């Protein structure tokens, strides 16, 4: 699996919010703000 490196374009993936809304990751950084993405492990 290819790992993401610094300087690369960040992949934007469409995901679902907890309320069932469709959200694109790019929606966050396209707002003009830096974004910290935290990928969790299992929810414990």
């Amino acid at each position, binding site marked *: 699996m*290819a790992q993401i490196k610094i300087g690369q*374009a960040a992949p934007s993936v469409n*995901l679902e919010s*907890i309320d069932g809304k469709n*959200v694109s990751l*790019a929606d*966050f950084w396209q707002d003009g703000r*830096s974004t*910290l993405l935290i990928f969790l492990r299992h*929810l414990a």
Partner: protein
Amino acid sequence: MTQVVSRKDDFEMLKSDIVTISFGTSYWARIWLEESQSPYPLLLDTERAAYRAYGLERSLLRSWGWRTISYYAQAMWKGEKWRGIRGDSSQLGGDFIVDPKGIVRLAHPSRDPTDRPPIEELLSVLQKLN
């Protein structure tokens, strides 16, 4: 995650957004939000499309190595509650900072569950982008 929640004001001062992503179900996600008191948006990725896109691996060996067992043992010794395993415990997480142009400025795929970037490193990268 606990530290990211407790340093919320510092992240806000740097005008940055924080987004948490989970491959879990909405049922467990709601419970986790309540338990963690996380104020950040939580997105669900049950198909793990984003996990794959960011190169985050599954590894049973690295997920349950001595570092992980030692970490959980110490946490329980300090009084933390063991909440059990909710989902695929082999899936590893990671942390990424993306600037407003969509370029990755920090990439930290976890080698094991205890491998997360120090909070000061996250704040430092965001400060430079500010």
